[in-house]
């Protein structure tokens, strides 16, 4: 199949639709995903194609249907649960953290839990404090989950396919500010993207910038600005938070000797702390300065555009953090 330009939203839809055609054991559940096609149109046309038994409109009850996903996974199906806003992961926290993540382990590996939880998070769209969080670090300290965060249509397509085929629970964190972003996707039934490992998106020799989700584009924007000033930044998309693989980041830092981590969440407890910790452990002698972190300020994301824009890391604020290091 050809390489095609499509949006992040279309990539999600294409991955789900193709996988559901391939495997009748895959079903999807979520709020308004039936005839309405999903509040973010990530399920458009699926109800018409696969019917009401495989594309299930749920009540507004995340504990109920995420718990149901566990029950389906334990009995031979491969459910996908769509969480409309990542913020609502808080509503089904127990099912994910105490149930889904631990079930196989506690059973002595008798059971397998092949399920995907997709959630659409992130700020920048004036949704206020309860509808703008990425949720990236909420479950970072929970063993038993895989957590991935696709930053482009290509990643959204290939990683979602891999997540659906994985025999373990995978939390796919998507970003609503990316839904309409476009990119080339190499379509194909088995065109999978790995669920682990960061990717170098732009090579550079002067500083390593690691980012996730919508911050990847901002970091690339910062790299453009820095380049104009003669600073060549290497930009790395973290891609997967669990398992967290830092090898390529360490390798990059050994070359650039400087590290900046960009996250769309507050600094305390962020995954950037884990990246910094592991880089310091493995490449302490290579660092010319303490690693820097660019994050949200330590308060809930405000609604006002004037305040929200100031709170979210931007190419300018990232470039400024880099210059402060140099």
């Amino acid at each position, binding site marked *: 199949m050809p390489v095609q330009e499509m949006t992040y939203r279309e990539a999600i839809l294409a991955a789900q639709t193709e996988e559901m055609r391939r495997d009748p054991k895959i079903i999807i559940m979520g709020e308004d995903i039936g005839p309405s096609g999903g509040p973010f149109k990530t399920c458009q046309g699926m109800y018409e194609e696969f*019917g009401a038994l495989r594309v299930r409109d749920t009540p507004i*009850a995340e504990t*109920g249907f995420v*718990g149901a996903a566990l029950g389906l996974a334990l*009995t031979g199906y491969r459910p996908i649960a769509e969480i409309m806003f990542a913020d609502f992961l808080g509503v089904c926290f127990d*099912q994910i953290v105490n*149930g889904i993540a631990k079930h196989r*382990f506690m059973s002595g590996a008798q059971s397998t839990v092949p399920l995907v939880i997709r959630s659409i998070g992130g700020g920048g769209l004036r949704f206020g404090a309860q509808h703008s969080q990425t949720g990236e670090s909420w479950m970072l300290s929970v063993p038993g989950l895989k957590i991935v965060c696709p930053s482009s249509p290509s990643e959204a397509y290939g990683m979602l396919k891999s997540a659906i085929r994985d025999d373990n629970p995978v939390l796919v964190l998507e970003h609503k500010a990316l839904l309409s972003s476009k990119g080339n996707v190499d379509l194909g039934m088995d065109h999978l993207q790995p669920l682990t490992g960061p990717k170098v998106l732009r090579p550079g020799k002067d500083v390593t910038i690691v980012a996730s989700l919508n911050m990847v584009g901002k970091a690339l924007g910062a790299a453009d600005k820095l380049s104009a000033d003669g600073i060549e930044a290497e930009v790395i998309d973290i891609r997967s938070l669990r398992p967290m693989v830092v090898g390529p980041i360490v390798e990059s830092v050994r070359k650039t000797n400087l590290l900046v981590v960009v996250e769309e969440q507050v600094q305390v407890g962020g995954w950037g702390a884990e990246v910094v910790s592991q880089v310091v452990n493995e490449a302490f002698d290579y660092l010319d300065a303490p690693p820097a972190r660019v994050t949200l300020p330590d308060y809930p994301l405000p609604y006002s555009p004037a305040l929200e824009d100031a709170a979210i890391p931007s190419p300018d604020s990232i470039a400024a953090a880099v210059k402060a290091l140099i």
Partner: protein
Amino acid sequence: MKSPKQAASKGAAKAKSSTGSNSAPLNDRERVQMFSDMVLIREFEEQVHRSYLEGLVHGTTHLCQGQEAVSVGAAKALRPDDYVTYTYRGHGHCIARGMEMEPAFAELFGRSTGVCGGLGGSMHLQDIDRGLIGSFGIVGAGLPVAGGAGVTAQMNGRGQVSMVFFGDGACNIGAFHEALNIAQVWKLPVLFVCENNLYGEFTRIEHTTPFEDLVKRARGYDMDAVMVDGNDVEAVYRAIAPCVAKARDGGGPAFIECKTYRHRGHSRTDPAKYRPQAEVDAWLKRDPLDLYRAKLAKSGVLPEKEAAKIVDKAREAAGAAAKKAAAAPWPDGNQNFAAKMFA
């Protein structure tokens, strides 16, 4: 466009010819078996208690003496390919489904031969091959999961059902309400079996719930709901079997409230002094094993001498199983834990 409910009921019509639930009248052999199963659970739990005092059971454990009739009466209505979810007070549900005692004891003792290799413990006995898909330590958490197994049963179209056991305390948590609502809206073949033993942990029901008859909760979801004497094993079976049969035929979920009582405290460290002695005495007089033993003796199905033999044999078997389990090695500290987490 069809709703899942309409689409499902169409599928269920097809399944109507499939094997229905076993709701035929019980014969004498079955009656004796049900008595034996209750005895086995009782003797298992009594042995757990003794083993706990010997330091073999770690942390805590939640015993079910007094509630055996619910596990056995409900299990009698199930097929081997049905799914069962239960709680931290779940030893009885597992034994009723045929879990072997030795690996169960070994799990409680934290040994490598445990049914979960010592990774689960008393609150998390599982046996996938027997449809025992999950034991939940979080109150109410099993109900949504049972709903998912119900979706599987509905999709498979083979007349399977999903049965979930929980206590009165679970009826106040959100997961309960979300699960009942979804099951009813989607017409899932889920049997919600509520063991109302009147106490949520240390607190009597009137302090936590506006009424004692929890069928009212289910009726609020327009769900079939029946109330039964949970200490009468045949009554439990007779109440549940028609609900199971209906669910197998696409008739949707049901809620069965079994009024019962736990003889001991919430967990091993709880002497249960918060319960009035008169209440405890009244319920002890209604011990489900004594009631059934007397009934079977009176009707000539099981002479007292034979019943005593069954008890002795079960006690001996439990003791022997515990002894073997206690001799098993500890789990390997260098095993591949990643493989236990991820397939």
